[in-house]
């Protein structure tokens, strides 16, 4: 593996007294696609929220690009180039598409904004067509595209996508995974947190399986894909 971008060691996190995650060790290399697979309630969203600083880790360390970030605020972590596109998309419904995208570049200079926007519009021509439309009027799939576009506006080194295929039609899911590879080809590392196991294992290099708040399996995506026993035992395939 090339240079380590994200390194998580012995991480635990939760809400109040209830611990959701424990003993989490995870690495993402620069430019790598890594999948975190697991069923609903396994702790996937908690993991994402802890990495992006929305939720405080109770134990353990998170290092990103050589900096300890487990005590940093979300805004600071975004400025470092670690962007989390949440499961609920969380686009700004009262703002136009263009305003949504511009806020994605909030931590970058104005000069960057134009360039980033041009790049995002090249990937998502549909967003360019509707740039003056309010985000609240978009369909679910379009909101997903906007959420990813807004994430790209922040010039990420690592993009965490939380259930990006959720609620998308099969055709849009195809588009999405093609898009993920395209983003990756531009040098952005991705952490895909998905229930959509089959397609995830095709684009990812490595995968972790999360169950009951901890990783129960970790290996090369190709190996997991090729081993029917592993797939049956851990992924219900």
């Amino acid at each position, binding site marked *: 593996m090339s240079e380590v971008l994200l390194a998580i060691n012995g991480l635990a996190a939760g809400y109040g007294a209830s611990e959701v995650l424990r003993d989490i060790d995870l690495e993402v290399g620069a430019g790598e696609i890594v999948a975190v697979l697991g069923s609903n309630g396994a702790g996937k969203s908690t993991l994402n929220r802890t990495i992006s600083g929305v939720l405080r880790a109770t134990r353990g360390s998170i290092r990103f690009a050589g900096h300890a970030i487990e005590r940093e605020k*979300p805004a600071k972590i*975004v400025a470092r180039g670690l962007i989390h596109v949440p499961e609920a998309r969380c686009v700004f419904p*009262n*703002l136009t598409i263009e305003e949504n995208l*511009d*806020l994605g570049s*909030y931590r970058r200079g104005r000069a960057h904004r134009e360039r980033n926007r041009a790049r995002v519009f090249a990937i998502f021509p549909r967003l360019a067509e509707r740039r003056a439309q309010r985000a609240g009027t978009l369909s679910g799939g379009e909101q997903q595209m906007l959420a990813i576009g*807004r994430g790209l506006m922040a010039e990420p080194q690592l993009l965490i996508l939380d259930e990006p295929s959720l609620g998308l039609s099969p055709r849009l899911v195809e588009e999405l995974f093609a898009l993920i590879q395209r983003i990756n080809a531009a040098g952005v590392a991705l952490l895909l947190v998905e229930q959509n196991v089959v397609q995830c294992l095709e684009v990812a290099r490595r995968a972790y399986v999360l169950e009951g708040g901890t990783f129960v399996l970790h290996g090369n995506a190709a190996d997991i894909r090729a081993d029917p026993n592993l797939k049956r035992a851990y992924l219900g395939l």
Partner: protein
Amino acid sequence: MLSPIILVPAVLNGLLTGAVYGLVALGLTLIYGVLHIINFAHGALLTAAMFAAFFAHRLLGLDPYLAALGLTPLFFALGYGLQRFVIGPAAHGEDRNILLVTLALAVVIENALLYVFGADTRTLNLAYAFDVVDVGVAFLALPRVIGFGVVLAVALVLWLILALTDTGKAIRAVAKEKLGAELSGIDVAHVYAVTFGLGTACLAIAACLLIPTYYVNPHIGNAFVLVAFTIVVLGGMGSVTGALIGGLFVGVVESLCGLYLGESLGQIGIFIMFILVLLLRPSGLFGERA
């Protein structure tokens, strides 16, 4: 009774008074729209601003309109600091705590003012306080005409800030989607504080517009905030346009009720309307339906 000679001046005067109500409501609704809390300290902060405007004239000889230029940034900073360093940290992220902290703040500010200045009612005697403007159909008090113009200008500036600046876009983003804003790199604590600062700055301007024709005592702010709260509900919680138009409307209602029911009963109309709005259109005129 319905003769235009009586009616038109009453409506115009109502609009002039209503504009300043609208400005107080604007601050309240802005804070509500973004932080999703009723700022119970709004009245006490208005009182503090009126005392500040009063003593800026009494001690420093500053005309209230001139004092506004200094008090507005000062109260912006005060509001920013209160939210960032007192209300925010004391609330620990719980909305109901914010509510209680602002209530406590109101008690502290009011009683501090009471302790320092006593319960006396004070007025400024400005040379132009009784000047009138002849608009053909009516004679209007000059300070109120100035107040009306200033409120419209402030509302326009506020609207431009919200629509065009990065900070304004961030404020609108945080209002509707806090998590999305955080994950886009927006410092939500800072945006909350800026919003609270803007709301408080509105009070400083309102105070400077009121002081030439109004009196000040340690409880004066509450009377305005009660009306402002009605306006916020009428216009739709969190709606800036609603606050302004609601303010003008309430001013006219108060003026007409005063005309027909007698000066001392003028405010009855406002509260009857408040109850009617809650019964018939709880989301307000410009509010989104829940």
